[in-house]
């Protein structure tokens, strides 16, 4: 299937600072895509190029196979990291204005806004000034105007910074709902743990370069370290002897009745081989593979690159 976004060899320079260097990415349609990397890596620069706030110095971006053009802004919803609202303007009026800038006519905008305001239970705020709203309320309004024009692509830059847990959950569930309707969502964040669970594709960006991308499953697959966690009843001596040369014990904890162990399988040893070796000496309660977190993968990848450079 054609990706909704095809980013090809994009470079971006600010004065003497290189913000993006030969970045190529594909965002599959209907995915929740995590754009991950530390602060200052170039995520916002890339997002601003997708939103046509700035242009790339080299390379190109295709939206549904077409070269990015101003008309595409109406099919993208963008919640920037630095976000706000006109403080002196009334909530409803302002929301209508922002939606009209995205190409909706006044009537449609009003109808849809009413619907969302009811959904988020904020109908009473329609005629209030923004400065009278709490921050959480403003966040709801900001989210609504980002998604109201039913864009094909929604870009959220650090969406949960400054959001309270209730709003965070509300928005996460809204995003999943939108994804189910076919919308593509790009999450950009430095806080990798926060989105890992809902992303199905990711790209890691570090120091202006993309260092890794793919589906979360593939990436984790590629970076699995053959590490397993076990909960069992049995003694440590027997357990260690049974591992023999097939596995290496990384961690062992006595948890009263049961024991916990973390082992790394060596060579071609499979989990079943491990079970077979252990069954005679221990009563296994659980066995599970420990997949690396995005954070682990990121750190590992960055270290790899740095060692390669040396």
């Amino acid at each position: 299937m054609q990706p909704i976004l095809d980013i090809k060899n994009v470079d971006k320079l600010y004065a003497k600072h290189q913000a993006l260097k030969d970045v190529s990415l594909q965002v599959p349609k209907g995915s929740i895509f995590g754009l991950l990397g530390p602060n200052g890596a170039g995520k916002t620069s890339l997002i601003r190029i997708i939103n046509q706030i700035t242009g790339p110095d080299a390379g190109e971006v295709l939206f549904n196979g077409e070269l990015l053009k101003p008309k595409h802004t109406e099919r993208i919803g963008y919640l920037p990291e630095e976000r706000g609202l006109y403080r002196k303007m009334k909530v409803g009026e302002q929301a209508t204005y922002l939606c009209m800038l995205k190409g909706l006519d006044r009537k449609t905008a009003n109808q849809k806004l009413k619907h969302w305001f009811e959904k988020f239970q904020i109908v009473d705020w329609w005629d209030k000034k923004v400065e009278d709203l709490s921050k959480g309320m403003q966040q709801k309004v900001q989210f609504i105007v980002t998604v109201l024009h039913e864009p094909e692509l929604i870009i959220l830059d650090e969406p949960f910074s400054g959001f309270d847990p209730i709003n965070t959950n509300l928005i996460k569930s809204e995003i999943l709902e939108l994804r189910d309707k076919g919308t593509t969502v790009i999450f950009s964040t430095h806080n990798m743990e926060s989105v890992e669970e809902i992303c199905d594709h990711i790209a890691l960006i570090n120091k202006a370069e993309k260092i890794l991308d793919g589906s979360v499953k593939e990436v984790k697959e590629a970076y699995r370290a053959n590490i397993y966690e076990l909960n069992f009843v049995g003694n440590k001596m027997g357990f260690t002897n049974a591992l023999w040369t097939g596995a290496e014990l990384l961690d062992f904890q006595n948890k009263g009745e049961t024991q916990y162990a973390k082992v790394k399988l060596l060579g071609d040893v499979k989990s079943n081989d491990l079970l077979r070796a252990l069954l005679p000496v221990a009563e296994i309660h659980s066995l599970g593979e420990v997949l690396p977190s995005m954070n682990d993968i990121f750190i590992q990848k960055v270290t790899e690159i740095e060692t390669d450079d040396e």
Partner: protein
Amino acid sequence: MNKIGLIIGREYFSRVKKKTFVLLTLLGPLLIAGGISLTIWLSIEDAEEQKIVVVDQLSPLFSKLENDKRVTFDYSELTLEEAKASFHDSPYSGILFIPKNIETGSKTAQLYFKKQPSAVVIRNIETKVEGIIEELKLEKYQISREEFYDVKTNYAIQPIKFTESGKEEDIDQGKTVIGFVFGLLIYLFIFLYGVQVMRGVMEEKTSRIVEVIISSVKPFQLMMGKIIGVALVGLTQIVVWIVLTFTIVMAVQMFILPEILGIDTTQIQATEEVLQEMNQGNSAMPQEFDFSDPNSILKRTNWTMMLGLFLFYFLGGYLLYSALFAAVGAAVDNEADSQQFMFPVTAPLILAYVMSTVIIQNPEGPAAFWFSIIPFTSPIVMLVRVAIGVGDGGIPIWEVALSMSLLVVTFIFVVWLAGRIYRTGILMYGKKISYKELWKWIRY
């Protein structure tokens, strides 16, 4: 582009709907008219009747001073010292001291008072003293009153411009005063609304709404939308002010003036006296602004041309400066930081205003020429000049054409330049910007 229309609409209505705008727009002309009337009224109206004690060293020459309903004179035999000594315990409001050698002019009469009397009272006393001295001199030189009026001459030179085509035209500074008023309006509006543009840009930047908006429209559209929207607010205000002021002036002329005239003629005379008094230093003013005089400045000014040029230079100057103000607003994070960039923007504006006060006197000198050509000062200075006419007998057409085209070229260039600063600046947060940095943004 209907999106730029949306932005213009928001900028326009969010300002026009503000209570302060409505109030200022409706009350502005009333306040101005009221202020002027009040000043005049205060200077002529004296609730208290003046009782003056006269100390005359030429006794009894000045016993002839006539009383009227405003001022009564009590002739005394006191010396000035005696009068002064008892002054504050007396019911008198003033001491008029006539020195011995008043007729030779080496000493003038003095009026001591407790509370400053109005200009009208002083003028009143002056006229009376003048009359007596004149009579004294007429007698001394054996001149009859008729002869005196015949000799007395009011002399003024009438400057006439003789053009190449042989046309003769009166030159008068009254016309440049009208031009100056237009220039002053432009100056005020550029300042007022230019700063509003800057504030608007800063508001969008500090409230962090700007990135949301420029993901829908180009930064240049946002900037121009704001500039145009605010310009329309300014035009609305000008139009309302002109219409209201005109209405008020007409109403006053039709209803209120005749009433006053009917009731109290002396007051009107006094008003005119005061006005003349006020305008003495200011040549060609007195009857020039009288509507009924067919020869008045108001009738001779080419209003169509003036209004047309006013509109052109207002828009040109405003676009030029408000683009710069927008760039300043985009470059800074808060109003305090804006000061360092404000100065170079406002300096030429203030210079233009100061120059135009000088150019009233000499609208065809070299200073007038240069400042009316340079685009940063021309919107204000050129209006002072064109008031004396354009083409034959006035400012050469090529000068006006050059000034106008330079203004257009410059504002296009400045808007482009400001756009470059703007698009980078609005996304820079929490950074103190230097001129070097701005230069980088422009080249980038």
